[in-house]
């Protein structure tokens, strides 16, 4: 496999086929957990772990999975991995588990895991599949992290609130003045839809602009060639 394959996967995961911004998957955890940036990124990190493992496992076992019953087997694999990650986190990383614990079971319901396993891992070698899972997970993290940051900033005027649960001793940034009363809408679920809608619009606008520029460049080139 050449490096260009890896680069293409990375480009797809982070931007072009971004699970949230372009495929609109994973809306349930995305909207439920993005009230603060720390919550959002924490869930995202756990998702990366599960996606990497699930893609690796499905890809490694793909020779044994009959095509007709692949979906129940994929779900079995993903649910088992999430349960195992949940137990291991609880036992050995208990402080982090107290923060992430309620979100880890949510990963089972996150359709980007199943989507990647079905669309990619079931057809590709294990190393590439694990890489794709992780990159798709990173694409999920930056979107949910940004969404969490925007909602937290507008909603309560802070960033990194709750960071002390992940890194003891760290404190949240109070960005807006202390007497900022907060903007409730941003924290409630409708706020998540508004902000996500704006983010998708922003992505489409950037893509559109890039396309226009490419077209203009092409036109200029052909004009130069005929001249």
């Amino acid at each position, binding site marked *: 496999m050449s490096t260009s394959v890896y680069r293409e996967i990375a480009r797809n995961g982070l931007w072009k086929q971004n699970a949230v911004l372009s495929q609109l998957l994973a809306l349930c955890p995305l909207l439920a957990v993005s009230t*603060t940036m720390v919550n959002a990124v924490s869930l995202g990190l756990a998702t990366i772990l599960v996606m990497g493992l699930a893609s690796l496992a499905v890809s490694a076992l793909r*020779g044994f*999975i*009959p*095509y*007709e*019953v692949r979906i129940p087997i994929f779900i079995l694999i993903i649910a*088992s991995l999430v349960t195992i990650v949940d137990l291991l986190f609880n036992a050995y990383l208990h402080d982090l588990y107290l923060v992430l614990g309620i979100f880890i079971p949510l990963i089972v319901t996150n359709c980007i895991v199943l989507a990647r396993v079905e669309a*990619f891992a079931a057809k590709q070698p294990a190393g590439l599949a694990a890489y794709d899972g992780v990159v798709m997970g990173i694409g999920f993290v930056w979107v949910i992290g940004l969404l969490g940051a925007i909602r937290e900033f507008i909603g309560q005027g802070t960033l990194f609130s709750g960071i002390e649960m992940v890194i003891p001793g760290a404190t949240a940034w109070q960005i807006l003045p202390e007497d900022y009363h907060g903007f*409730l809408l941003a924290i409630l679920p409708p706020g998540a839809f508004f902000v996500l809608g704006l983010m998708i619009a922003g992505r489409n606008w950037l893509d559109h602009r890039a396309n226009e520029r490419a077209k203009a460049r092409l036109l200029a080139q052909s004009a130069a060639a005929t001249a």
Partner: protein
Amino acid sequence: MSETTPPVAPLPEPMQSSALRITLRTAMILLVFSLVFTTMMAEVYQLTQPVLQATALDAKRRLIAEVLPADAYDNDLLDDAIDLPPLPELGLADATRLYRARKDGQPAALVFETTALDGYSGQIGLILAVRADGRLAAVRVTQHKETPGLGDYIDPKKDRNKAEPWISQFDNRDFAKTPREKWRVKKDGGVFDQRAGATISARAVTKATARAMAWALERQDRLYALQAGTRYQEKSP
């Protein structure tokens, strides 16, 4: 990901003849996968169980330490417990435990849970320690779903006033000196502050605390006298 990539393992030719054989073969494969992954989960569960139990016990100790200082008692709290049935008077739908703190053999405090059913969004779980002399040692929120950034100040971890969290105004409050009609938020004519815009959360906690204290103080002789490990039964009136 082109169209020509073969799908995951196709069924071999001879097997495609009879529906029954396909069913059996596929079911066997599903069974094998279930067995393998269930075994993995069971193994990890076995492996982590001792650690999980230890952390659960630790968490309980830490929770109790939040409402009752360690120098207030000298017995083993976790052993000196009685089982409470589901008690609608305390908003408890499930059986819980009540821990009895003693110092030099004398009753010191009762540590137990209560639930406020009238939070802004659902129930608020509370743990509190009621001293034998009628003072509330402290009350803490164990779980809640109040609006983040608005009503969640009832949980000191989320309270932006770290030096003097909202819930600390209950610490060592004497139930005898703060009668029940004063044991309310200021908006309702009581003595406890509430934060602007989120009175409902504060009111729910305050009300549930008063109710739980009244409940415990009324029956504390019986609660202290019961033998450890037995089940408390509410007397029929």
